């Protein structure tokens, strides 16, 4: 068997010497973002690149499922399925065929706090594509046939999700954590509420879309002047403003509770969580690094090392920070054999305790920082992912310099910072835990 080790080690030493400089040089110009403001005053962030003759557009609006009228939950989601089912003079079939004839890709989706639209087109079809986007966003038809068809499809999906262990765990967690809040309601509504949604409800939802609540990211083969013209043509007909968007801040309930949903599966699905931290908190970056140490960085994280690598308890275990408009979460999940659920949860709690009490070693911190900064830079290699990020950073109000300063901020986090946020955020005994399966070893 041949040894190639000496070769590998030789290059390793060389690469480590040049690593830090190269990475920082690369980040200086991770991407060049242009703030484009149309003659009519509509703003978009643009990263221009003509390597591939396509343009990717991502649009986000504040207000998703939280705009649903009580009793009509699922309205935003059902509406989002109808934006490409007919607009202007075109019914559903005409609209879809026209998209395909021009190879235009268009999609709409609704989350808790956001309504999203995305479009990708070949540069040769730019005007046609933005024209179709304008029709969809300003003149959706909500034809009765299409509404009923999409309603049946949504009901079918709801029926299946009622049996899916992961969906059950997720739904149970949100209900328990936010029972009295809009966040406690399933994003797709329920069978009962979806049956009650009518065309007026969909039109009312559509009426909430407005330019004040809209943020646009664009990447690809388009120049600022052309984009400016297309912004006015496409979005100029949306109302300048709309109903107030006022998220009602809250915190997750159920601290210290464990909820078991009995389900006859070979494996239990576990979701755990508690309050997290907002983007606007001065310790957000430190918290992001802390979470990566705990469970947010795949195999570089402690949870993956302890639960999977050392004990073979799970294929996947992770933790994540999430920030919604009305709540923050530090949550995580694991899927493990029923007989070893108690053991897995104990290990997760003890890793949280250890990080809270002992903090992080400088060497481990440095490795996590390198992982976080390197992986972030890798995410800017396609127009689709760049457009998504441009819209996202505007919606979260993170500033146009965020992308090119983020990695420096990650590197500035110290071991003391990590320990401080770990003490603040890690409360292993106050987690809300949801288990779906036939778990053993839980007291």
């Amino acid at each position, binding site marked *: 068997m*041949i*040894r*190639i080790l000496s*070769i*590998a*080690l030789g290059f*390793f030493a060389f*690469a*480590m010497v*040049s*690593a830090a400089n190269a*990475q920082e040089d*690369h980040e200086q110009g991770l991407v060049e973002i242009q703030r484009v403001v149309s003659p009519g005053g509509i703003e978009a962030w643009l990263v221009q690149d003509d390597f*591939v003759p396509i343009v990717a557009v991502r649009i986000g609006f504040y207000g998703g499922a939280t705009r649903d009228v009580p009793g009509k939950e699922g309205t935003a989601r059902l509406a989002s399925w109808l934006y490409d089912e007919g607009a202007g003079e075109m019914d*559903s079939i005409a609209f879809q*065929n026209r998209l*395909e*004839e021009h*190879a235009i890709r268009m*999609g*709409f*989706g609704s989350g808790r706090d956001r309504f999203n639209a995305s479009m990708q087109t*070949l540069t*040769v079809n730019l005007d046609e594509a933005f024209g179709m986007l304008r029709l969809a966003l300003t003149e959706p038809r909500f034809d009765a046939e299409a509404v009923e*068809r999409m309603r049946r*499809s949504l009901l*079918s*999906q709801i029926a*299946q999700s*009622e*049996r*899916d*262990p*992961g969906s059950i765990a997720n739904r149970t967690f949100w209900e328990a954590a936010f029972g009295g809040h809009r966040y406690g309601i399933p994003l797709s509504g329920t069978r009962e509420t979806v049956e009650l949604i009518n065309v007026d409800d969909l039109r009312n939802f559509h009426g909430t879309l407005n330019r004040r609540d809209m943020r646009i990211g664009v990447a*690809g083969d388009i120049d600022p002047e052309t984009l400016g013209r297309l912004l006015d043509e496409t979005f100029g007909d949306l109302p300048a403003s709309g109903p107030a968007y006022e998220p009602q801040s809250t915190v997750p309930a159920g601290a210290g509770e464990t909820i078991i949903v009995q389900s006859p599966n*070979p*494996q239990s*699905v576990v979701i755990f969580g508690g309050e997290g931290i907002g983007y606007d908190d001065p310790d957000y970056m430190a918290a992001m690094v802390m979470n990566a140490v705990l469970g947010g960085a*795949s*195999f*570089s994280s402690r949870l993956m*090392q302890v639960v999977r*690598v*050392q004990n073979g308890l*799970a294929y*996947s275990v992770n933790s994540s920070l999430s920030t919604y408009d009305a709540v923050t979460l530090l949550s995580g999940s694991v*899927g493990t054999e029923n007989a070893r659920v108690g053991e897995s949860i104990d290990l997760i709690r003890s890793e949280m305790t250890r990080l809270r009490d002992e903090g992080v070693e400088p060497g481990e911190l440095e*490795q*996590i920082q*390198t*992982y976080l900064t*390197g*992986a972030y830079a*890798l995410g*800017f*290699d*396609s*127009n*689709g*992912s760049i457009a998504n990020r441009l819209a996202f950073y505007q919606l979260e109000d993170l500033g146009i310099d965020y992308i090119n300063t983020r990695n420096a901020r990650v590197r500035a986090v110290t071991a003391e910072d990590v320990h401080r946020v770990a003490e603040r955020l890690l409360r292993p005994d106050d987690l809300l835990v949801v288990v779906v399966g036939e778990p053993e070893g839980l007291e």
Partner: protein
Amino acid sequence: MGFKLSKSRALHTAVAVLFAAVLAGCSGPAPSSDGDTPASIADTISWAPESFTLANGMEVVVLPDHRVPVVTHMVWYRVGAADEPEGQSGIAHLLEHLMFKGTDTLGPGEFSQIVARNGGVENAFTSFDYTAYFQRVALDRLELFMGYEADRMVNLNFPEDHFYSERDVVLEEIRISQQDVGEIMDVEMSRTLWPVHPYGIPIAGWDYELGAIEPDQVNAFYQTWYAPNNAILVVAGDITAETLRPMAERTYGQIPRRPVPSRARAGTEDARASDRVTLEHELAGERYLYRYYEVPSYRTAGTALGAAISLGVSILDGGTTEWLYRDLVIDSGLASMAGGYYWGSTFDDGQVVLYAVPNEGVGFAELETAMDEVVAAYLAEGPTAEQLTRTITSTVASAIYAQDDQVSMAQLFGRGLASGRSIDDIMGWVAAIEAVSASDIQAAMAGVFDPQNAVTGTLSPQSDEAPAQDAKSETTSVEEGEPDSITDDEDKKD
């Protein structure tokens, strides 16, 4: 378009699925037009793969993309779950996991730590016909990782205790799929369609076989198949063949060639015992109707017939406007969802899958009859000229969209080559798609929709009276996007 009933077959070692689905066939010639206006959108495709072969037989493909100083480095082995010894199902995938557990000179997980410490991300995946490993890193780290990847091509050496805990991890991965009723059903359909051929066994293996595999068996499998002359190096990103070649020679080029068996799998000629699957399952919340056909793959059919099957099935699927969807969902209202897809990237024969979700009050028999009528009408009439033109346009465009993503490009060439196709086959795909006529499709579809070569299945929620069913002995594969098309990152209605 709804609820994805499509499948592709790849298992991932790490959690994050880093891949967008890419077209199985692939794509295009790069005749850059020197005029101002391209005659066809195909003229704007600028794929420019460079390739060479090392002295030891390792094939190398370079896919330049100089937008950012980043590369995607992949090694594809021409071995997968369909090449496993009998009774050792899941061993290819278990080996993939163990490749992260050390070599003669690196400890378990050490390569992964080095990747992370250098700001890279990594993963690996196993399918029926290939096993692949990759890292995405800054350009100046590339040769470092090539060295480590070459190291584990020949010097794998995992400690025994890590073997057993990793085998448990893989068993947990199998249990995840045992909670997904779509996958449970796919296992039942596949084993009925392929009673002899290994495509009938899940990629991750049967849990009772996997749980009995021992380290020496994995080492034997590794020694048999992992060799430079059975591997393909694909590097996409900020590099050229001229720069890569000396790096490849210094790393992979140092490993001697050795004999590797040919890929002879059990045949598909044996008669099926049954052409029906009926499953009631407690995890099913809805009823689903499936039809699987055994059909030629791009490799077994050749690119021209593969392209005709791909377009033909795409038109029959109908998006949300034609054929299956139009007749079953829009016009008759029998179903809430209907469609079909071609899984044609395989080394041996592939599959065409049709599916529909019946609306309340609609029986399976009624829906199946209606589905057969749609197929019969399609066979008789063929696609209209408009349908064909539209579908060719969007299919050719997918070759342009693929260029936006290094990983898609690397996967497209890696999978094609590892599944027995050549770069010329792959590069000829766009021209083959553009050349397909309506009569080509009719001829191809007549071969595909052969009732003698199909399995029909129904999946239903468990009726209240029925006793609890034990579904624990079956496993299936992890879904990962459609095999034969490019999907957007924002799947609507999903």
